[in-house]
């Protein structure tokens, strides 16, 4: 009462770090200078740079490892959720043509488009890509997969119509040795002559003859595609390979369009001029009708709508699919009731994770409290029991629960023996949500106990004593004084358990049956069974976003600073 100065905040005079900072703030006469006259900030930064560099060097290996082995694959995987280049890459001509098609007109695309489709599918089937596209589009429209597989075989027949006519007209068109001198440039032919197939050297890349390219553009383009495929994908000798049937179709198209073959000289020009005259009498192919013959689905609007919808290189289709929606002609729409699955699954995953987190708190809190209040020796011993599950395989623990929880399992047997349940009404504890919740609570319990314990360890028992000495009952002292201080531990444990639970896979897979599975089981299914990686990636991305969103919400409500894992 005499010394009032002691009640204010501590204010020391003299050289303390605080005072130095205050002085620096108040300095209005230019920047503080170091002894050598450079600004103090600059020399401080220079002094710290070495330390920072060294710190960076120390973490660099791990940083690189994580970037390469963790971040990059995840980014790549998530990217698949929007990636859709396969349609435009496989059917370039078709998707170009479809851009102008009005899907709401009720008409199937015009016949010209079918010619493009023919070329696309022909090339794709040579490259064996058409089935892959088929399965991709099959995710959106059932039946497309078999449609493409059928068409891959069918386009060969369409091409043969022209091939046969050319070959019947003149044997010349049959052989690769006639085609190559006609199409290839002189230099390339020379290179090929000097190339020894057995030497292992790379085959000289095909070069088109410029005159041919200008007179027969489509044939040249198709032959180039063919040559590139033979030379570098099949790695066969181009000189010995007869051209694809589609090259004849292209030649027919060029010639019937009135190509100026007279201006062409060199090998095969005579035969070409003869053929140019003859094509007028050739039987033509109606591509649209030909495709209808392969499968009448090609004249179904729905197929074309699907192809058009999924033409762009990037699509929101997977994400829509992941939230039970789909792309309709009029924009996104909900799927029919009976096809909805994922939203329900997401909600179920969240609710079950919350229940698991809640039961972990209920079971873990008293254990952590006991551990924190026992003498160190006993506490360490008990801590080993808590940690014991960590040293046992997850699979073993989950399988043990299978044994325990079955209808004829240990728990049911015990309950029947005790007479708690009748023998004919044994509890269904496994292959449902109960099973998942029981097993996962057990497996994740240590993740709740450990942060709780380390936080409780830092709460001195004097707080409880103080509260009691102030008149609080045991319960009030606990609830008003101890519990609020242990909340950071609950927060840390809950975040850990919830985030682990929401992405858990093995345990729900083994004990969850059909009703106790999580979204992660669905993701695994799409990764390994249905091979719909795009959808798996979209589901994964949504899961990640939900977790980050919850984390953000937690930070806003509770504050992440209040989370303590220890100390």
């Amino acid at each position, binding site marked *: 009462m005499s010394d009032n100065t*002691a009640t204010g905040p501590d204010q020391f005079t003299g050289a303390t770090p605080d005072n130095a900072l205050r002085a620096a703030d108040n300095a209005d006469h230019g920047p503080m200078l170091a002894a050598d006259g450079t600004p103090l900030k600059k020399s401080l930064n220079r002094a710290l740079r070495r330390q920072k560099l060294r710190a960076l060097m120390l973490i660099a290996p791990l940083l690189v490892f994580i970037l390469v082995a963790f971040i990059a694959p995840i980014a790549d995987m998530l990217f698949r959720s929007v990636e859709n280049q396969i349609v435009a890459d496989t059917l370039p001509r078709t998707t170009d043509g479809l851009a102008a098609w009005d899907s709401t007109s009720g008409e199937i695309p015009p016949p010209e488009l079918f010619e493009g489709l023919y070329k696309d599918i022909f090339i794709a089937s040579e490259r064996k890509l058409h089935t892959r596209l088929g399965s991709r589009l099959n995710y959106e429209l059932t039946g497309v997969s078999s449609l493409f597989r059928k068409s891959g075989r069918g386009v060969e027949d369409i091409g043969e119509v022209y091939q046969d006519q050319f070959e019947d007209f003149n044997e010349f068109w049959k052989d690769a040795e006639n085609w190559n001198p006609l199409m290839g440039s002189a230099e390339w032919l020379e290179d090929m002559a000097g190339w020894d197939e057995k030497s292992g050297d790379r085959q000289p890349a095909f070069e088109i003859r410029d005159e041919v390219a200008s007179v027969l553009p489509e044939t040249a383009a198709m032959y180039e595609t063919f040559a590139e495929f033979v030379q570098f994908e099949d790695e066969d000798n181009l000189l010995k390979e007869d051209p694809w049937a589609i090259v004849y179709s292209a030649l027919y198209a060029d010639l019937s369009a009135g190509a100026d073959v007279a201006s062409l000289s060199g090998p095969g020009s005579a035969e070409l001029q003869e053929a140019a005259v003859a094509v007028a009498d050739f039987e033509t192919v109606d591509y649209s009708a030909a495709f209808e013959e392969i499968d009448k689905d090609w004249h179904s609007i729905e197929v074309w709508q699907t192809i058009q919808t999924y033409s762009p290189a990037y699509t929101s289709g997977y994400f829509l699919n992941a939230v039970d929606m789909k792309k309709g002609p009029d924009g996104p729409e909900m799927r029919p009731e009976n096809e909805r699955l994922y939203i329900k699954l997401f909600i179920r995953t969240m609710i079950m994770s919350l229940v698991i987190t809640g039961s972990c708190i209920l079971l873990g809190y008293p254990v952590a409290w006991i551990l924190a209040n026992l003498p160190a020796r006993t506490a360490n011993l008990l801590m080993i029991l808590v940690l014991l599950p960590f040293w046992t395989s997850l699979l073993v623990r989950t399988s043990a629960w299978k044994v325990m929880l079955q209808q004829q399992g240990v728990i049911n047997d015990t309950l029947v023996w005790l007479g708690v349940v009748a023998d004919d009404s044994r509890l269904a504890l496994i292959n449902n949500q109960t099973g998942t919740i029981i097993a996962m609570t057990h497996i994740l319990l240590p993740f709740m106990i450990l942060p709780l314990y380390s936080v409780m360890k830092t709460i001195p028992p004097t707080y409880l004593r103080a*509260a009691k000495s*102030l008149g*609080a009952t045991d319960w*009030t002292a606990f609830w008003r*004084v101890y519990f*609020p*201080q242990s909340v950071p531990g609950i927060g840390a444990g809950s975040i850990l358990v919830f985030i682990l639970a929401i992405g858990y896979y093995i345990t729900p897979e083994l004990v969850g049956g059909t009703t106790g599975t999580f979204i992660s089981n669905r993701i695994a299914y799409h990764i390994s069974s249905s091979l719909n990686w795009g959808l798996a990636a979209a589901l994964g991305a949504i899961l990640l976003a939900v977790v980050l969103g919850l984390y953000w919400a937690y930070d806003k409500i509770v504050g992440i600073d209040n989370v303590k894992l220890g100390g």
Partner: protein
Amino acid sequence: MATNSTADAFVEFERVQKSYDGENLVVKDLNLFMPKGEFLTMLGPSGSGKTTCLMMLAGFETATHGDIRLDGQSINNIPPHKRGIGMVFQNYALFPHMTVAENLSFPLEVRKMGKSDREAKVKRALDMVQMGAFGGRRPSQMSGGQQQRVALARALVFEPELVLMDEPLGALDKQLRETLQFEITNLAHELGITVVYVTHDQTEALTMSDRVAVFDDGRIQQLAPPDKLYEEPENSFVAQFIGENNTLEGVVKEIKGDSCLVELDGGEVIDAKPVNVQKAGDRTRVSIRPERVEYNKNRLSPDAHTLKAEVLEFIYMGDIFRTRLKVAGTSEFVIKTRNAPDVERLVPGQQIEIGWLPDDCRALDA
């Protein structure tokens, strides 16, 4: 043992024993009677049982045997929260998740006091320790001294008649400690509360208390007002523990009423006051306070026994001189003299003769 048994004792320990392991007694046969309004300090080295006594009084430990009474009522079976005893802890124990005002309001809330009453009392208590402006702060935003003031206010806000303090100033620096010692004693006397104060700092005990109970080995070695404790220690533990003390060992030669002759182990004979010796032939430790030793022959009575001493060390301490001597075989004999113009400053190596009044030299137990 000094017991002050009165009918109106406010706090009573009667034959209290405490054992934690069933083999050793931490508190052995404690008898203590405190009148209302007394400031009593329990002083002792760590492990002497003083904190255990405090905890038994607060209700956090139960006595193994004996009776503890508060205002005539046995409180052995009353839980801590019903005892209505205020308590201040060494580490303050302010609830970190509450503001200062909420901390103070807590004991009033659990007593179901109305909001306006609470606010008035909290404000009064904070003003009492000059922390009125800090109501909205969190404990972590305050210095140790400020926290302890708040802790004190919290222990007083529900107006307990008895307040226990468990080394409340132990974690503070010296200057702050002295300020707070003064404030605490003043507050206690102003409010008329009874205080049991535990400390191992003898200066604190001497400056603050009405009476000091010196604990050692589970017993009260002496219970007396500070001056008596310092000047008239009843046994050699108290003499050693309280203040600086010179000890010489020897055998009692002769007891004559109020004085006795002690033959030291080196053969020298000195005068002493028999305190804790029964008969001639007993071994004894004589205790002399450094400031009671005299080497100016003019001030000693002519028939006083003196001892030869050699100056080993002379330390100038400002207000006093501290001189270490070699006396009767011990080289740890210290004398203190006031820094005054007429006092001779001794020089190491100098041979002097020292003596004292027989009353200042107490023959205690060996």
